[in-house]
């Protein structure tokens, strides 16, 4: 099957305005980071009790997002699903960009950024997940670049081999990222289920983002995208949501059941704003509602509903990432079992982390930088196909599409793709 790739022209006012807006945000992020380098990271909301904040949350969120893109890319590369070939290049490109975003978030979070590029290589510590992971991330970016080259040059067999490698490598990347938290002696961190739940949520958020990017890109550039492909991706997303929800629920049921960790778990599951993020953000908005929408025949075959579900999933996984990092820090370690600390110069009880404006600017800066690279990539790299059509459809899918078309006609307001 021949696919024509045609970059966008990128000469409209809107294109240049977008680039400028992104650059302004990048400049804001750089300013925030420079201020922190100069005056110290007390300008963030972090403290001695909560030493990790928004940047780490965003880092693991971005790294998670890259996984789903790769899986979509792998549908063609590994399983030979030709329908998904038009997306393979964009997916690989996005996977690389999000890995860069994750790495950048971690780098800008360090106290001594000047040493980050030398010391970890000169003094690699094999027992530190923070040593192992950058190596995994860097390798991942390299493999992604090679994979994109193989896709651009249409190397059939090599593409397949690289595709398998990159997906397996991504599995290591995500397990490693989950292990940053799981391999520490902290009550809400040290669960062996954290790496698998990280991978599961990564797949669902990544697939959701892929749907959002593809639908909006094809719409904005007025290219044809078969409804069937979006429906299929929606089905895939629905399965990922169920798997993620399963692992996350088991993880929490387990630590709630064990008496030793019940106090900490009930603090975060049932008290304060964590409970809202967990039950409201992650479970209801981020998992149950999109899963129901995607499994229902009428909504699951309607592109606007699939897009809506994808937005919900991305929001839900962002909540999940926050819940991985923060509650485990805000809840104090149990220094004296059976006792309570009634006076100390340090805040020994439950503390609250509040995000500072500069941290938000940093996070936006990183996101805008990869957004900038993505928008440039669309113009200068052969990423976007002229059209994406589903070939060799099964009868069942044909029925689905017929239904979707009927839906679209019944609801004239819903946008056709």
């Amino acid at each position, binding site marked *: 099957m021949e696919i024509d790739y045609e970059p966008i022209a990128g000469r409209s006012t809107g294109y240049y305005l977008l680039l400028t807006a992104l650059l302004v945000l990048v400049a804001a992020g750089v300013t925030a980071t420079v201020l922190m380098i100069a005056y110290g990271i007390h300008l963030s909301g972090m*403290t001695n009790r909560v030493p990790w904040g928004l940047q780490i949350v965003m880092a693991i969120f971005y790294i998670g997002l890259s996984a789903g893109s790769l899986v979509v890319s792998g549908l063609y590369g590994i399983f030979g699903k030709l329908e998904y070939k038009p997306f393979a290049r964009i997916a690989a490109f996005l996977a690389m960009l999000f890995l860069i975003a994750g790495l950048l978030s971690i780098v800008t979070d360090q*106290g001594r950024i000047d*040493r980050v590029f030398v*010391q970890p290589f000169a003094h690699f510590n094999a027992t530190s997940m*923070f040593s192992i992971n950058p190596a995994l991330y860097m390798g991942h970016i390299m493999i992604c670049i090679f994979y994109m080259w193989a896709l651009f040059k249409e190397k059939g067999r090599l593409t397949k081999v690289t595709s398998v490698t990159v997906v397996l490598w991504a599995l290591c990347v995500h397990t490693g990222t989950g292990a940053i938290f799981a391999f*520490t002696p902290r009550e809400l961190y040290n669960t062996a289920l954290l790496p698998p739940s990280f991978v599961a949520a990564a797949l669902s958020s990544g697939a959701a983002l892929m749907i959002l990017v593809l639908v909006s890109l094809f719409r904005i550039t007025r290219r044809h995208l078969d409804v069937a492909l979006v429906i299929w991706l929606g089905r895939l997303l629905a399965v990922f949501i169920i798997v993620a929800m399963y692992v996350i629920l088991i993880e929490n049921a387990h630590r709630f059941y064990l008496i030793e960790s019940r106090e900490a778990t009930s603090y975060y599951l049932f008290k304060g704003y964590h409970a809202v993020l967990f039950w409201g953000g992650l479970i209801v908005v981020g998992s149950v509602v999109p899963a129901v929408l995607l499994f229902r025949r009428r909504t699951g075959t309607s592109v606007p509903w699939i897009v809506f579900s994808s937005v919900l999933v991305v929001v839900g996984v962002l909540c999940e990432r926050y819940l991985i990092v923060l509650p485990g820090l805000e809840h104090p370690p149990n*220094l004296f079992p059976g006792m309570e*600390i009634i006076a100390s110069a*340090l805040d020994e009880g439950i503390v609250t982390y509040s995000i500072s404006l500069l941290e938000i600017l940093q996070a936006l800066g990183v996101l805008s930088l990869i957004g900038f690279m993505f928008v440039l990539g669309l113009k200068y790299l052969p990423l976007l196909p002229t059209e994406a059509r589903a070939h060799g459809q099964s009868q069942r899918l044909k029925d689905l599409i017929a239904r979707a078309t009927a839906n679209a006609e019944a609801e004239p307001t819903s946008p056709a793709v």
Partner: protein
Amino acid sequence: MDRREFLKTGGLFLVGTPCVYGLMAMAAPRPHEAGATDARRWGMVIDLNRCPADCSACLEACRRENNVAVHGDRRWDIHWIRKVTIRKKHEADAPTRTLPLLCNHCDHPPCAQVCPVQATYKRADGIVIVDHHRCIGCRYCLIACPYNARYFNYRENDEWPNKAYPKRSHGVAESCNFCAHRLDQGRPPACVEACRDSGAGALKVGDLDDPDSEISRLIADNSVKRIREDLGTEPKVYYIGL
């Protein structure tokens, strides 16, 4: 210079600089390593029966000796040694106990295990110490320490009372190091000295491997406890009367 040559030189510079710095970093000697010998294993005994609740001599001595930062903000103040008051949970009229907490210099230090650049490490004599010229400020050690004994320099320390000892720039982590620089000179840590001078004599430091040392005898003759022994970190700070 044509384009090809420019790219070549630029690339060489780009790759070469970190390599040279990396080699220099690898060759750089450890500070405070000179006095370390595996003939000793430093430990501490704190006799709470002799530690008055309202005394803070050790805290003040430590701050003066090691230029520990106090910003007047609980979020960022650094405490190499701090005093906490504890009592039984849910019993408002239970008797309270006040005790000093400091780095336990674990035999299996989780902070050193997770440090991505080996800036935190255990010396041959068991002291857990931070190489402040190597620390990248990732704060993973603060996450891993189960005792809240690690601190981070969130902002610059304006005070520098003891010019004989360096202060730290903002952006690096730190914790108690048993005053390794003093132990290496044969002097006791500042807190131990201040405690002795105040007349309390609750803090003792010594060699855990020597069965005849004062602290080995105190450990043998008394019922001692270490904090969260169940974690398996093998802390080297022992409490009498906890």
